[in-house]
């Protein structure tokens, strides 16, 4: 419960936040804190400076463009997304967010935090990979946009550099999505999850089987299992699941997510 000493900065703009982060390579952005603060309690990580992004309106809000593209501010909390009228354009977002942790965590935890921490047990990384989200990343020398396929680099690592911030998440129009997970108890710690999206072809992303979501493409739900097998997974094993069990769940859940996607009209 007892953190190491840390400095705290509360910038009033994204520009200032980026300055704070650039000043010290031990600085870390603090979003909802529902992962980072816990890791700091364990003292498994101890940033020198926490740059608090709470209150930066630029990083909040959900807009729906005429072409159906959803633009989500990374500091949007799960609860805000669940309540958002715009977000209903892509119902899976609400469905998955309402399955994350519990009320308290959903009130505080953010979409961007979930994605940038990229903990293997998180639900949003595979979901974003499946729906083909695009991520806008800002640094002091401007913005760039990366697709989901280049965004997740490893456990707790994404394309967002130490001195950068995720400033926008763009999700293309679409409705035919699916999600399936096996968790410890009802909505507990994730063992394996899978998200699917039908957009012409079928894209399925599987979480908690590797350092980053594993994406497979398939013609139809009937061929998803083969596609997953072909991906040649070597999932980590832990106290909740052997590598073999995770590999098996990956197939089953990928197919279930795919069927939900295919059956959504």
């Amino acid at each position, binding site marked *: 419960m*007892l953190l190491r000493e840390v400095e705290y900065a509360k910038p009033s703009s994204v520009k200032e936040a980026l300055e704070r982060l650039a000043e010290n390579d031990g600085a870390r952005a603090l979003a909802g804190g529902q992962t980072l603060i816990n890791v700091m309690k364990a003292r498994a990580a101890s940033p020198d400076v926490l740059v608090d992004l709470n209150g930066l309106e630029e990083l909040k809000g959900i807009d729906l463009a005429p072409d159906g593209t959803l633009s989500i501010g990374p500091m949007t909390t799960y609860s805000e997304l669940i309540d958002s009228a715009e977000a209903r354009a892509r119902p899976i977002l609400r469905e998955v967010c309402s399955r994350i942790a519990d009320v308290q965590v959903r009130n505080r935890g953010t979409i961007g935090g979930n994605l940038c921490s990229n903990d293997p047990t998180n639900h949003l990384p595979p979901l974003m990979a499946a729906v083909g989200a695009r991520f806008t990343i800002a640094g002091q020398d401007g913005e760039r946009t990366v697709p989901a396929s280049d965004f997740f680099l490893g456990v707790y690592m994404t394309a967002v550099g130490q001195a950068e911030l995720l400033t926008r998440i763009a999700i293309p129009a679409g409705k035919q999505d699916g999600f399936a997970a096996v968790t410890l*108890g009802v*909505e507990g*710690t994730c*063992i394996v999850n899978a998200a699917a999206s039908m957009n012409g072809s079928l894209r399925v992303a599987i979480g908690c089987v590797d350092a980053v979501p594993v994406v497979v493409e398939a013609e139809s739900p009937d061929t998803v299992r083969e596609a997953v097998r072909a991906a040649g997974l070597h999932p980590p094993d*832990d*106290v909740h699941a052997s590598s073999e*069990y995770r590999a098996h769940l990956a197939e*089953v859940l990928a197919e279930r997510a795919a069927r939900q996607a295919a059956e959504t009209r």
Partner: protein
Amino acid sequence: MTTIAPEKVEVGKSWLGESVPRKEDRRLTQGQGVFVDDVKRHGMGYLHFVRSPYAHAHITSIDVSKAEEIKGVYGTLTGEEVATLTDPFFQIASEPGGQIKDFSLAVGKVRFVGEPVVAVVAETRELARDASELVEVEYEPLPALVDARQALDGAAPVLHDDAGGNLMWEGVYEWGDLDQAFAEADHVVKIPELHFHRFNSTPLECDGALVEFNRGTGQWTIHTNNQFPGFAAIMMGPAMRCGLDKLRFVTQDIGGGFGNKITSHPQLVVCCLLSRKLNRPIQWTEWRTDFHMSMSHGNERWFQDTEVAVKADGTLLGFRTKALDDAGAWLRYEPLGGVIWAQVTPGMYRWRHIRVDFTQVATNKAPVSPNRGYSRMQHLWFTERVIDIVARELELDPVEVRKRNYIRVEDMPYETPNGCVYDSGDYAQMLDIALGLIGWSSMDDKRRDAESRGKRLGVGIGSTLDSGTNNFGQSRLINPELQFSGNNEVATVKLDIFGEIVVTLGTTPQGQGHETTAAQVVAEILNCSVDDVHVRAGHDSYWNSHAGFSGTYASQFAVTGLSAVKGATEMLREEIKRLASAVFGGVPVEALELAEGGVRIKDNPEAFLPFMACGAIINANNAGLPEDLGVTLNCRYVYRPPFQVPDVERKFGNLTLTYATQIHVAVIEVDPETGYYEIVDYAAVDDCGKRINPQIVEGQVMGATAQAIGAAMHETFEYDEDGNLLTPNFYDYHVPHALDMPPLHTGAMESPSPFTPLGTKGMGEGGGAGIHAICAAVQDATGKIVTDSHNPYHRVWELMR
């Protein structure tokens, strides 16, 4: 939630058997409880433990200088200092475990990950942890022993050289005539190995203390949440070379215990030594990860080479098995687990020929301690597994096998093969109630319905005994030298100057509602309202309100605690009458009665002496009272259950006074593709004799059930091959939350105990039934024999492959 309760026989207005709201709740619902971390003192120092990162290693050097240099750090304590300032803790074990040298900090060697090595005290909690990171400990790692089955191999690393190996205790228990039983048997069912896993009740509040040392009197005041101060005292006094009067234990509200808060004496000793060394109050709060890594795991047990003698019709004749118990790194309460199980030797069945070769070994894992259902749960899980495995092997109906072999109501009181006496109960009828609650008759339709949805349905029964009120004489079966026997508990009931009825208990409740049930008993006897009875919260050993076995553990308050309250209140009632008879000028005591907050003459109600007057006369206005009156209106009573010292040679005798019973039935649905399963229906039927407060009793049944569901499905303290705990927090040690709870139906019977003053039985530890039931349900659903008490999804999936 549906409930079946026995008919209530109304004999006038009685406080006994009433679900009166709890006195404790008013403060607890307002955040006004006083839990140990809420206790603060001026100038107190916060203690943080430096813990071992290794499961097994020599400590080659310790350097605290860098830590002590920091401003705001008050001081440190190392194992070397502890070894000079204290003696090793008294060991319950005879040879070889008795040879262990157990100190309150690691001395020379660490034996499990998380073992306290150095204590650091500082001005703030944060600073204490910062400084602990500057303590330099050099280790020389040793191979770790994590599997009890390898402990006795010559090649296994040895934890305690003093004990000459990893064997801590062994004993052979044999009753009846095994050869005859197996000769008579039509079938011998063989079960190579069963495993009862490691978990505990994880009370939401972890351990803690605030310790003050009074230089003038040499007394330590220990504000703590230890749930068995009587035991802590006899461990700490000799180790600290002081008399027990120097150790004052104070508790108020305790955030759950379940047995897991009995063995905090090592940490309490460290706090005591530091409060004296640094001359300031010492505050210690244990955090969740510390608790999981180092405290009070339940006994992990293997049952090997089991053989069961059965007749063709399913009549059970007897069994033999080898029990291998994993005590972890230290014997902090062990090897008592090596005999406690014998309270329920035959489970709930009539077999008479039983042999158990019991072996307990040390491993590089957290030390075990009592955990709700302590040691009996492991053995009862074993007997229930045997029943269901036998039923499967012989293709018999598990319900029929149980009913055929259950001890019958007409056999009560029933003497078990080892001389324990089951006091009362009708197991077969309880099972029928439980089966009725989950709609047993329509189970085939439910099965078909589940299959139509691609699920596999499974039903399982768990029968269990909740033996309560220990005869500590059983400790002699593991160490004949020990001079413990019997049991006792204390209550003091007084009438104060203004007529307040004040009750002091020796117990240390952790949510069992003692303030309420004690008040119910007092109100019943003094014929007043529970609202007029003031029961002091918590325990304070300073005012002689306790006895050697005082505490709250092992299902006994309804027997020991309430019998003490009953005894003290009856003494007070008689004193009030004697006083009134004197005041009324010699009216015979028989002519008096207590009513409406006072005492009066039966056929002349105007002659009324209110309690206020009684209290005032004795305490403040007593001139002229007869010299030989002998009334103090301050009555202390010690309840002592009727026990004999067991026969050590035959390992025979009554080990516990009462046997509450629970029968649970679980219905699960398994997803055959993933092994994921849910409990879709659940029934728990309880019989704990006379229920003083049915709502509190039902609450205990529910809580134990929830813990069983967690243990059976998710909760496990699992280690990797290097002895790292893989489930050190609630993220990986999943305790059930509200969404994990199945629909629950509860039922109750009341078979009063013939052996207790109120007909009550201790209860609260019957949750094991849930583990048995879920294992049986998994076996039913998968069609595969279940050999482990822990069945997470991946294991169920593996079973079905």
